[in-house]
């Protein structure tokens, strides 16, 4: 599936293992929430087990229908989406998708989103100790739902509160996913670290919109949508650089990563792992290609571990 195979002997020279707040992953290339379904949707196209982990589509306590169409719109080097967290709900996830993921042996991080602090807590409790759940990614940054989501992620106090409640409610590694739609992402990152997060992931999408000039109305059914893809990569990279220098927990870099070169930029900025989002939509095998390319690059340039890539001032 991947384009070039590195032979095992060569590959054994480098250590791709990373530690995400206690969660040890074989390699640092993850699939981002909302762009890989629940794994099943991708399983015939790539070898999911060979990825560091998959972060499943955001789950809420109750199933959600999502936003009215149109939900997506292409922009220059980017994608606007306003899915609105359509998802099966935690019950269905536990009985259908999760068992499948566990059987396949796919490392699984569950992305959760609540309308209230209580809902976050409830979900953390329900997922705690479930076989197959390796960590939680707490989404406090979804720009496409009215309540919850980004509202929690744009304020250090409420971000910390959600983090603490989730952390106290379960014993899983907690990754908090940050919103880029803030004045000072380091302030939020520090508050969340302080509140007990084991790791941070960033960035979620940047709020944007498009207008259909012929119909004289917003393109998206939801008016606003989240911008992702290569267009936002420079912004994501800057935020990862800043946050990696402000906190001491691991940072997972997300935003426009489409090639192994992009991934290397994020590791150099200080990311411990990266997630591939929109690029998987464009080409489902992107993450495999990135993994292979990373290994190649590290071998050529004599890097032995992901940590060595980080630029240290």
């Amino acid at each position, binding site marked *: 599936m991947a384009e070039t195979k590195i032979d095992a002997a060569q590959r054994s020279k480098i250590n791709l293992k990373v530690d995400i707040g206690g969660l040890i992953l074989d390699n640092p290339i993850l699939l981002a929430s909302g762009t*890989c379904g629940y794994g099943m949707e991708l399983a015939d196209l790539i070898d999911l087990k060979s990825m560091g982990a998959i972060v499943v589509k955001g789950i809420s306590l109750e199933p959600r*229908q999502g936003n*009215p*169409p*149109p*939900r*997506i719109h*292409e922009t220059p080097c980017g994608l606007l989406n306003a*899915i609105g967290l359509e998802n099966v709900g935690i019950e269905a996830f536990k009985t259908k998708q999760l068992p499948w993921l566990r059987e396949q042996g796919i490392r699984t991080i569950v992305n959760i989103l609540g309308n209230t602090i209580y809902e976050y807590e409830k979900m953390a409790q329900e997922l705690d100790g479930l076989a197959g759940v390796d960590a939680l990614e707490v989404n406090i940054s979804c720009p496409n739902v009215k309540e919850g989501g980004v509202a929690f992620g744009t304020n250090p106090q409420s971000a910390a509160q959600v983090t603490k409640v989730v952390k106290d409610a379960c014993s899983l590694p907690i990754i908090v996913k940050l919103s880029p739609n803030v004045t000072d992402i380091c302030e939020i990152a520090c508050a969340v670290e302080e509140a007990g997060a084991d790791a941070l992931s960033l960035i979620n999408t940047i709020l944007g919109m498009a207008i259909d000039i012929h119909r004289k109305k917003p393109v998206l059914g939801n008016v606003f949508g989240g911008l992702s893809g290569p267009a936002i990569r420079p912004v994501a990279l800057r935020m990862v650089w800043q946050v990696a220098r402000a906190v001491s927990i691991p940072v997972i870099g997300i935003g426009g990563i489409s090639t192994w070169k992009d991934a290397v930029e994020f590791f150099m900025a200080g990311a411990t792992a990266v997630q591939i989002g929109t690029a998987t939509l*464009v080409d489902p095998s992107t993450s495999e290609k990135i993994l292979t390319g990373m290994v190649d690059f590290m071998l050529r340039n004599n890097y032995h571990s992901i940590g060595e890539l980080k630029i240290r001032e």
Partner: protein
Amino acid sequence: MTLQRFNLKANILENIEIRPDIFLMKVSAHQISQHAIPGQFCMLRSNLIDGYDPLLRRPLSIHRACKKTGQLEFLYRVVGRGTKALAKHKPGEKVDLLGPLGSGFHVKDHEIPILVGGGLGVAPLLFLAESLPGRKGVVIIGAVTKSQLLRLEPLRETGLEILLTTEDGSFGNKGLVTEVLDRLLTNLDNDAKRDVAIFSCGPMPMLRAIYHLCQDQGVRCQVSLETVMACGSGLCLGCALPARDGYVHVCKEGPCFEADQLEWE
């Protein structure tokens, strides 16, 4: 779910402008051709696009699939940058291809299929027509004018009955495909109506009219729908359309739907 999809770089064998801005592309894609069923589509991206703008692949119906030769055909109109890039390709060049995707048309064994295509809607219907060898059935093809009636020869070779109509009367009947269909259905008795089923692809207003016609006449109807798509493969949930029970996803549950399952507003 046991999906059998393939993500590959396909070799372009032919890419011919058969009418102004309408192209027929033939590619070699063995694996996809083996698994494809009529009504399914592929996501394509031109290898001439050297960058991220446009970013996404584009959905095109499988116009023809040959298990023997391993070849696929696409019939497409140049409307924007994605299809413009496809149109520039020469034989020997490559295209990124993901498929086969989505649900196909489902013709039941006892049914007499009536295929109804407007304009480019003929794209998935040729594959369907060719998958019905020796069966009784009708293909109704309509267009604005004669020169926009596409792919008549291969359609005729299927042995199905072909009815043609043009809005300006320059060829075949004068009028809309719905009028032809209406007449055809009205002439059937109730038993016969139970045996026919409509398989349709074309512009939304046409599909809506056909849906209402079939409702009135009590005839089963499948339609192939289009939406904007990001992944085409069920990953993003971007291709939702309202249906009877909540949203359906055109790339996953569709593009072919039982018309009465949808919300026609």
